[in-house]
């Protein structure tokens, strides 16, 4: 483990309320370098680095930035800090511990694409992150990093912190626009895509907090450094949210493509509970379960596709063999039923029926045809839902049933041997 963390390097080492601390620890050097490079070169750098979005969908950030940089003003940049995927806590830790870094990254994004207004949309249940980022924004206004003619470089940028209001769906980018616009968080039909028609109908760059923070070391250290980390097809540093039955849960910064084995045994200190690994949930409730056979798969966007899994927002939740998998699946099904916004029927009805069947499964009262129905509902939601919520609402549940050996006759998961 010779990797030197960059995204988390300042956490716990600086006072998150102090601009002086931030500057003394290298803060705002990336912005200065970005201004030297100029907008075109920054966008090009992002494209060549092939920085993939860290919020879940793994879309190349450079493509979005380029499209918006070429679009007519007014345009917007948004930091998606709504972080509500179960198992995800990385963006909160970054914002609480290093809030000026997010402001600096937003400034670079705005400078690169030519936006004069930006928003940081933070989950409402993150009061400390909201307070610290708001303080950082206020401090940056006073210090001349925000507002008119920043760094004397002749560009202007206003940045507003917005507080979410308890809706998982508002992390979906178009629902987030609706929310900032003062409406219910109903996702929009795509296309048009945000780069063309986003917030207030204008071209918009929206990126996850971690994606944005990756831009700082990329600008400072350059393309070769970035590409030297992780696999060629999805390079760069990565934050993994390690939780569940490990001895040392926590945020791990490691090269993209670190293996499950390294995360669980080196960083996490091994499996707790029974001590025997039963399975791992990757990507959160919207993700999928994998088994111990997958311990050596590279945890990156491309590597996981080879085993029909996803990295999503970086959730790595560990389950030992003593876990009651039925109680786990009940919670996943309940989550999607509650969080479905109800705009489209496949998801609104599908998440309800899925929850009912999973409740029966958990109670040992499956009816004949229930499992088949569960698969069909999953397929319909995947194919016919408007947004990612419905499209992913069945993945974790079906993967558990398939990969953990659910036996319809005994009502047990063969891999998990607790005695219900």
């Amino acid at each position, binding site marked *: 483990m010779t990797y030197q963390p960059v995204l988390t390097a300042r956490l716990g080492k600086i006072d998150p309320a102090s601009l002086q601390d931030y500057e003394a620890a290298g803060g705002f050097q990336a912005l200065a370098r970005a201004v030297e490079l100029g907008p075109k070169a920054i966008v090009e750098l992002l494209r060549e680095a092939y920085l993939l979005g860290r919020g879940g969908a793994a879309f190349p950030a450079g493509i979005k930035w380029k499209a918006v940089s070429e679009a007519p003003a007014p345009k917007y940049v948004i930091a998606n800090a709504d972080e509500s995927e179960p198992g995800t806590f990385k963006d909160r830790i970054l914002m609480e511990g290093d809030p000026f870094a997010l402001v600096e990254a937003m400034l670079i994004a705005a400078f690169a694409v030519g936006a004069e207004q930006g928003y940081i949309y933070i989950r*409402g249940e993150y009061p400390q992150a909201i307070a610290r980022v708001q303080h950082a924004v206020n401090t940056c206004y006073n210090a001349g990093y925000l507002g008119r003619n920043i760094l004397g470089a002749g560009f202007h940028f206003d940045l507003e912190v917005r507080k*979410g209001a308890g809706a998982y769906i508002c992390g979906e980018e178009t629902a987030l626009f609706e929310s900032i616009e003062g*409406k219910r968080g109903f996702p929009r039909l795509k296309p048009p895509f945000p780069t063309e028609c986003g917030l207030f109908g204008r071209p918009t760059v929206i990126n996850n907090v971690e994606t944005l923070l990756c831009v700082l070391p990329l600008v400072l250290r350059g393309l070769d450094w970035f590409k030297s980390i992780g696999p060629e097809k999805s390079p760069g540093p990565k934050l993994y*949210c390690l939780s569940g039955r490990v001895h040392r849960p926590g945020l791990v910064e490691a090269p993209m493509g670190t293996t499950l084995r390294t995360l669980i045994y080196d960083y996490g200190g091994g499996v707790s509970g029974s001590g025997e690994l039963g399975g791992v949930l990757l990507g959160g409730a919207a993700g999928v379960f994998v088994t111990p056979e997958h311990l050596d798969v590279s945890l990156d966007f491309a590597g996981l596709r080879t085993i029909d899994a996803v990295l999503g927002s970086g959730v790595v939740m560990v389950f030992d063999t003593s876990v009651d998998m039925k*109680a786990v699946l009940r919670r996943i099904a309940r*989550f999607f039923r509650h969080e479905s916004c109800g705009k489209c029927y496949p998801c609104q009805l599908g998440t309800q029926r899925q929850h009912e069947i999973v409740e029966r499964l958990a109670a040992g009262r499956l009816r004949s045809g229930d499992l088949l129905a569960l698969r069909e509902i999953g397929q319909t939601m995947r194919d016919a839902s408007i947004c990612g919520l419905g499209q992913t609402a069945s993945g974790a549940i079906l993967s558990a049933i398939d990969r953990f050996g659910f036996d319809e006759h005994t009502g047990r998961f063969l891999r998990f041997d607790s005695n219900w």
Partner: protein
Amino acid sequence: MTTSSSVSPTAAHLHLSPRQATAVHAILRRYRGKGSAYLLPCLHDVQAITGWLDADLAAQIAESLDIPAVQVHNVIEFYALFYDHPVGRTIVRVCDDLACYLAGSEAIVRACAAHLGLDPEHGGTTADGAFTLEIHPCLGRCEQAPFLMIGDEAHGFVRPEQVPALLGGEA
């Protein structure tokens, strides 16, 4: 804490103290004419004073921002953090999602419900209006599971026996 039941949401009206009313008026003045994009910030600010949002307040907010009243109602109804019925002075959010479940959240939920005299399945509000208990999806603190929030205060690695001291009575 004594046994209590949920506060009935029917026909509830907010009774603002003079101080609250002054504070709300100041907020509404600040948002005057700002339009739809300021609806969520305005709702957050007003609710921070009043605890919840009744139909009368919603109408005043609509008028101040100069947007349709129905939009304000729809938005309040949509978002979990906005309340259209009376809630306790302190909201207790206990995470019962995956990582917290793996760390024993069921016992934390039971301890909270027992201490407040509420239903462990659905939570609710104590009769004295001091607390509302919410059984919550992941609160983004899974590395500190099991986790709960008392108002804005974060409490990680909670043990069931700590719950009475954490919730106490009301200060």
